[in-house]
């Protein structure tokens, strides 16, 4: 297949709608009659609601109804945006109620007001009186695991899961080692900060089913979980996703949709809107797991890993959400990056009284990569083995089988990424300059980090993608996918795939502005960097099927005049041609018209594919960073930063760069600034707003450099591997390593804030 559009920076179809403000997000769609919901949140961090007095709240003008836990189903449901599991061993933990009497974190959802205005609902919420029975609360995993800790969920002992994976013989591996290095580190709770807050509204439709319009990454999963939450047939629900203002995993979880539907049910099916405030999104939707690591590794004197023992403890917060799968992923990521003959990966996921941790871009990988890549830095500094050499020696290779995931990798270009990185970044020049100009209050340093990731979630969960293509009357092609456009540009990429595979101009492909579970083919949604890979396979299959049908039809309609066989026919630039001389047989539009309106033989051409994907491909990449640290204030200036990615073939370079730049900026915040903090006295979140939570502004992000090593992956539908999540996996450790290089002292945990640097300097901590 000739690539005409794949590999080109074609314009995303929704760009003009977005830049003119015409793209409709959930909050932009007018309703004839709309009520507003507001959540009443607990003012303690752990305990029980003893009693609730809503009488004063009900008197507030405009209040229609107040829901308490008595008014919603007594059904516990899971919220993770995972595919449903038919195997009872792998089902998601069902620990959530629409409203709860058991308070598990400060701000837990204990009641909800429905009113004719948002303000009336807010006033009413402030008038609800609640009496609590208070328990001890736990902000850290250590506290939650201590002897005699109160169980946050009954019977859990505050542990969601405790597992060990591995390979080889750990003891023997350590015996073979010439030296052993140990370290500990910890990562913070951070938040997605997608610009559009969680928002959903629900109503009863003309067919008496419940419609939920929501800013979700996972419409089809959302529908299933609504069914579970209400104990009703899943078909009774319909989920519609309009344009969505970012997600980064925060909307790969069910947060407000069941309550929105419950509120509509409480008012006879009138539309009720639940539009969270930024403060609520920060503290009470989902966050990234804070994970602490203990790492021990054995090496030969040449720097080859003989054994690794990693113990990871993950703070899951008050509800299971994605639960153990996030920290557990770190094991397979470790063995995708480094060849470790003897390996033990223990991971525990623990309930605490902080925000429920769920999916966030990278899904446990930024955490394990932070641990691994700062660890490798330490090994290099302690042994004097060059940091590139140490890593390259231990990287996995093409055709290696991942002993934890039992998947073979077919492409792996980390060595090439380093090579390209050194050249683009001018590593050697920078190194030389820094080494020759030491001293003073402003010191410079360089750091690197490498990562591995996955494309989709197979074999951990099943992977299925869907695509329906319809040949329109004029030869244009209507493309319907269940995979979810959330801003990353998946619709553009799928359209490129269809255009090239069928053989028509990109502009002929028509995407959908909404994903509607009644209409869109089944696909589990936007997560796991799965869409170009997993959904892309379905798109390719559908496009090939449609192309086959077009050629068959063309042959059929034109066989009296056209002597070539189907095998000698192709579609190029929207024309059906004969391959041997390139002569045009007919335009696709002419053929399409025949398929629709030929009195005797017309039949519309469609392809409707559901494809199960049983493959995975590991994308790789690196970050190189140069920093300048002000030793008197601890301020870090990022002078230059580069990501080089091995994501196989790049389908759309400008969109790909955009993904990388965005991920790098998030990684920068993760490494240097961001952390959601809690008050130790009350368990209340302290900085759940965009002023006190230090997401980088345009003045904080330096120029970002991006490069790709493009080598086709044999498994990816178009030689491609995933790219969405990878970019934020490696900046944080690279920055931290650069800071250590600059200062020559040990700075342990991210975010590496000025205060932490000043503290480390005053204690003169050794590396």
């Amino acid at each position, binding site marked *: 297949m000739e690539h005409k559009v794949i590999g080109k*920076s074609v*314009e*995303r179809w*929704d*760009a*003009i*709608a*977005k*830049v*003119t*403000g*015409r*793209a*409709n*997000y959930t*909050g*932009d769609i*007018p309703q004839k009659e709309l009520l507003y919901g507001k959540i009443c949140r607990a003012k303690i961090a752990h305990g029980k609601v003893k009693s609730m007095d809503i009488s004063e709240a009900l008197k507030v003008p405009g209040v229609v109804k107040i829901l308490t836990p008595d008014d919603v189903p007594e059904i516990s449901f899971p919220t993770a945006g995972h595919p449903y599991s038919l195997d009872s061993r792998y089902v998601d933990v069902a620990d959530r109620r629409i409203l709860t009497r058991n308070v598990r974190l400060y701000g837990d959802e204990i009641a909800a007001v429905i009113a004719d205005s948002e*303000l009336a609902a807010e006033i009413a919420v402030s008038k609800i009186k609640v009496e609590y029975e208070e328990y001890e609360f736990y902000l850290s995993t250590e506290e939650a695991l201590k002897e005699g800790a109160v169980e946050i969920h009954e019977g859990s002992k505050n542990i969601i899961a405790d597992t060990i994976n591995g390979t080889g013989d750990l003891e023997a591996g350590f015996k073979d080692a010439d030296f052993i290095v140990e370290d500990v580190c910890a990562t913070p709770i951070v938040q*997605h*900060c*997608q*610009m*559009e*807050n969680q928002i959903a509204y629900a109503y009863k439709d003309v067919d008496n089913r419940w419609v939920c319009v929501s800013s979700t990454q996972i419409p089809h999963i959302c529908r299933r979980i609504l069914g579970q939450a209400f104990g009703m047939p899943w078909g009774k629900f319909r989920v519609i996703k309009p*344009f*969505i*203002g*970012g997600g*980064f995993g925060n909307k790969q979880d069910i947060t407000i949709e069941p309550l929105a539907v419950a509120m509509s049910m409480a008012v006879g099916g009138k539309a009720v809107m639940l539009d969270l*405030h*930024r403060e609520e999104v920060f503290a009470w939707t989902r966050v990234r797991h804070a994970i602490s690591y203990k790492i021990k590794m054995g090496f030969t004197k040449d720097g080859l890993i003989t054994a690794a023992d990693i113990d990871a403890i993950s703070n899951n917060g008050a509800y299971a959400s994605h639960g153990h799968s996030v920290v557990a992923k770190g094991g397979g990521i470790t063995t995708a990056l480094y060849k470790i003959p003897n390996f033990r990966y223990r991971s525990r996921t623990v309930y605490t009284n902080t925000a429920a941790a769920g999916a966030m871009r990278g899904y446990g990988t930024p955490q394990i990569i932070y641990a691994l890549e700062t660890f490798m830095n330490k090994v290099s500094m302690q042994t004097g083995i060059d940091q590139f050499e140490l890593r390259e020696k231990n990287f996995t290779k093409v055709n290696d089988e991942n002993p934890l995931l039992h998947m073979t990798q077919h492409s792996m270009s980390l060595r090439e990424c380093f090579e390209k990185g050194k050249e683009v970044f001018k590593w050697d020049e920078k190194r030389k300059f820094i080494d020759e100009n030491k001293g003073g209050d402003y010191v410079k340093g360089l750091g690197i980090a490498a990562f591995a990731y996955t494309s989709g979630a197979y074999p951990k969960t099943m992977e299925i993608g869907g695509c329906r293509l319809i040949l329109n009357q004029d030869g244009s092609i209507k493309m319907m996918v269940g995979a979810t456009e*959330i*801003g*990353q*540009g998946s619709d553009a990429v799928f359209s490129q795939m269809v255009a090239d595979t069928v053989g028509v101009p990109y502009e002929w492909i028509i995407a959908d502005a909404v994903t509607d579970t009644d209409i869109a083919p089944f696909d589990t949604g936007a997560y796991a960097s799965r869409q170009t890979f997993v959904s892309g396979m379905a798109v390719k299959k559908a496009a090939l099927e449609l192309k086959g049908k077009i050629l068959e039809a063309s042959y059929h309609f034109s066989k009296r005049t056209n002597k070539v066989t189907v095998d000698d026919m192709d579609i190029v630039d929207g024309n059906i041609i004969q391959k041997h001389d390139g002569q045009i047989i007919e335009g696709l539009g002419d053929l399409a018209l025949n398929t629709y309106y030929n009195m005797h033989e017309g039949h519309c051409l469609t392809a409707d594919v559901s494809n199960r994907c049983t493959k995975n491909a590991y994308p790789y990449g690196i970050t190189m960073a140069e920093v300048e640290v002000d030793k008197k204030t601890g301020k870090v200036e990022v002078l230059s930063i580069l990501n080089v990615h091995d994501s196989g073939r790049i389908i759309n370079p*400008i*969109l790909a*760069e*955009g993904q990388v*730049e*965005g*991920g*790098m*900026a*998030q990684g920068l915040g993760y490494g240097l600034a961001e952390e959601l903090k809690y008050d130790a006295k009350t368990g209340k979140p302290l900085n759940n*707003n*965009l*002023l006190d939570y230090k*997401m980088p*502004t*345009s*003045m904080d*992000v330096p*120029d*970002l450099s991006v490069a790709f090593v493009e080598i086709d992956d044999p498994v990816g539908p178009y030689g491609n591997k995933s790219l969405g999540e990878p970019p934020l996996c490696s900046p944080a450790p690279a920055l931290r390593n650069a800071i250590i290089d600059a200062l020559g002292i040990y700075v342990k945990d991210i975010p590496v804030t000025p205060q932490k640097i000043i503290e480390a300097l005053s204690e003169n901590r050794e590396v």
Partner: protein
Amino acid sequence: MLKTINCKINGRDMELQVDIRESLLDMLRDRLHLTGTKQGCGVGECGACAVLIDGQTLDSCIYMAVWADGKEIVTIEGITNDDGSLSDIQHNFVDKGAIQCGFCTPGFVVSATALLEEKPNPTKAEIRRGLSGNLCRCTGYTKILDAVESTAEQRGNKK
């Protein structure tokens, strides 16, 4: 409590009855259905609701609707040309790949419009500062800065 105000919105003179409790953002979105202006935080920390008031970029979420009396307001809908074609800044946002989820985009276009009015030849640092009241989580700002820089260059070349 209702109050009558007179203002010009996207070139049209309007007389409006507004609730004194309304923000300008409420007025634009709920009363006039100008939904291109978005709400991201409600407290002036993200810039998604930025509009031009008498040529200055302001966050409409923390601007009382009654204050619009006598003012000239331009929203993203008014930056787009009357025939639906794009302003040069909008065009460059599209061209440079500055758009991802698009939720912050209208606010950025508004702030960029004000910035280039005030500083036709900004340095990169001035662009960063001029857009620092608008947050974006998708792009890392790179392509947004490119779009504004390119617009300034193109305007310079035209002269």
